[in-house]
C-alpha cells in the first residue's frame, strides 16, 4: 500500500494487513477495495461520517464480519482459510465495543478470567491472578467482586479493556469506546487508552475524540462511503485536510466541540 513518505515509518514489522478487502451486506457495498497495513506498535485513528464503514472495517480484522474479496492477514496468518486461523487471529487481537458487552451475569473478575480459563485452559487461580493484574492496570481492581450493573459506564468500559488485555493480545481494536459514555466518564477511558498506547500497544481506534487522536495517533485515516479517502498524520489531517469530504467532516465535528 502506498504509505506516504512523510509519515513516520515505524521500525516494526507489519502486524495487520488488509489487501483489496471488499465487504458486502447483501446488495450494499460496505467496504470498497480497502488496503491498510499496520505495523507493530502503531496507533491508528479511524474517523469518518456515520455509515462510512468504520465499524465494518475493524470488525473484518477479527472476523466478526466475513469479507467477500481480498485478504486479511494478522501476524502472518491469513484469516479465514481455516477455522483455526480465525481462532488464532482472535486470540491475537483484543476488541472493545461501544456498548461494553460485558457478561452481565458474571462478576468482573469472572468476566476477565473466563477466556483465559476456557480458551487458554488456565487453572482458575492462575487466570484470576492474571485478571487482577490487568484490572489493577486499568485502576479498577477494587471492583473485582462486583457485577457489571453495579459499575458506572466508564468503569465498565475499563473492565472491557482489561478483559481484552487479559488475553495478552498483539493489537487492540476500539469501536467508539467513549461514545456511549456520559461526558464526565470519557476522560477516564481515554486516559486508560493513552496509557496503553504509551506501553506500546498496537491500536486501531474508531473515535471522534480529536484530542486523543492528536495525542496518540501515528496516522489518522478518514473514511467515507466504504473507502479510505485520506491518510495523514494528525497534524496534517487537522490543520490541512485535503479531501473535501474530510474538510466538511472536520468542520462538522469541530464546530460542535
Amino acid at each position, binding site marked *: 500500500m502506498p504509505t506516504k513518505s512523510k509519515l513516520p515509518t515505524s521500525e516494526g514489522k507489519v502486524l495487520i494487513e488488509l489487501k483489496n478487502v471488499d465487504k458486502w451486506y447483501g446488495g450494499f457495498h460496505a467496504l470498497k477495495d480497502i488496503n491498510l497495513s499496520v505495523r507493530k506498535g502503531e496507533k491508528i485513528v479511524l474517523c469518518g461520517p456515520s455509515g462510512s464503514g468504520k465499524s465494518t472495517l475493524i470488525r473484518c480484522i*477479527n*472476523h*466478526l464480519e466475513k469479507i467477500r474479496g481480498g485478504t486479511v492477514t494478522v501476524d502472518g496468518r491469513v484469516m479465514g482459510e481455516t477455522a483455526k486461523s480465525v*481462532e488464532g487471529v*482472535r*486470540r491475537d*487481537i*483484543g*476488541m472493545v*465495543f461501544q*456498548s461494553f*458487552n*460485558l*457478561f*452481565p*451475569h*458474571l462478576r468482573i473478575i469472572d468476566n476477565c478470567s*473466563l*477466556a483465559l480459563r*476456557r*480458551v487458554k485452559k488456565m487453572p482458575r487461580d492462575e487466570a484470576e491472578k492474571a485478571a487482577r493484574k490487568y484490572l489493577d492496570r486499568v485502576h479498577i481492581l477494587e471492583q473485582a467482586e462486583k457485577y457489571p*450493573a453495579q459499575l458506572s459506564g466508564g468503569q465498565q468500559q475499563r473492565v472491557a479493556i482489561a*478483559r*481484552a488485555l487479559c*488475553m495478552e493480545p498483539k493489537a487492540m481494536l476500539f469501536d467508539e469506546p467513549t461514545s456511549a459514555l456520559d461526558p464526565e466518564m470519557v476522560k477516564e477511558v481515554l486516559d486508560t487508552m493513552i496509557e496503553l498506547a504509551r506501553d506500546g500497544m498496537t491500536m486501531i481506534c474508531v473515535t471522534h475524540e480529536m484530542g486523543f487522536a492528536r495525542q496518540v495517533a501515528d496516522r489518522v485515516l478518514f473514511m467515507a462511503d466504504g473507502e479510505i479517502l485520506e491518510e495523514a498524520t494528525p497534524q496534517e489531517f487537522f490543520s490541512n485536510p485535503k479531501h473535501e469530504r474530510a474538510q466538511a467532516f472536520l468542520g462538522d465535528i469541530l464546530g460542535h466541540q
Partner: protein
Amino acid sequence: MHDFGIPEMFFLLQGLKWTVLLTAISFVGGGIIGLAIALARVSRVAIIRRAAATYIALFQGTPLLMQLFVIYYGLALMQFSIDAWLAVSIAYTAHASAFLGDIWRGTIQSLPAGQTEASNALAIGYVSRMRDVILPQALKISLPATIGFAVQLTKGTSLAAIVGFVELARAGQIVSNLLLQPLLVYGIVGVIYFFVCWPMSIFGSAMEKKMSLGR
C-alpha cells in the same frame, strides 16, 4: 352407597402420585430434549435449524390429545405392545420438549448480539459460549415462562386418562362414579390440583419480581 372417606381420599392421592410422576418425567425428559431443540433452532446450519422448527411446529400445531392417540394406538398398530405408562411418558416428553425448546429459543435470541460478539472477539468457542455466556442468561430470563409451562403440563396430564392412565383426574372420575357425588369429588380433585399448581405459580411470579428488580 357410602360417603367420601379415607379410602377414597387415598385413592385420589394414589392418582396424584401418578400425576406428579408423569409431570416430573416429562418435564425432565422434555427439558433435556428441549435444550437440544433450542440449540438446534439457533444453529448456524440451516438444515438443523429447519429440522428443529419442523419438530416444534408439529407438536405445537397439533392437539396433545391427537399426539397421545397417535403414539398410543400408532405404536400398538405397529405391533409394539406398549403399556400406558411408556406411551404417555413418550407423548408428554415430546410435547414438553417442543414447548420448552421454543421458550428457550426465544430467550436465547432475545439476548443482545453483543454477547455473542464479545465471546467471539475473545476467541471463546461454541461450547463455552453457550455454557458460560448464553445459556445462563437465557435460562434465567426464561424461568417465569418455564414455570408457567410446568403448571400447564401438570394440569395437562389429565388428558392421559383417555388412554386408560389412572392419574388424578381419572381417579376422581372413578370415585365419582362409585359414590354418585360428582360435585363433591370433583371439587376435592380441583382443590388438590390447586394446591399442587398454586405454589408453582407463586414461585414463578416471585422469580419474575426478583428478576425485574435485578435488571
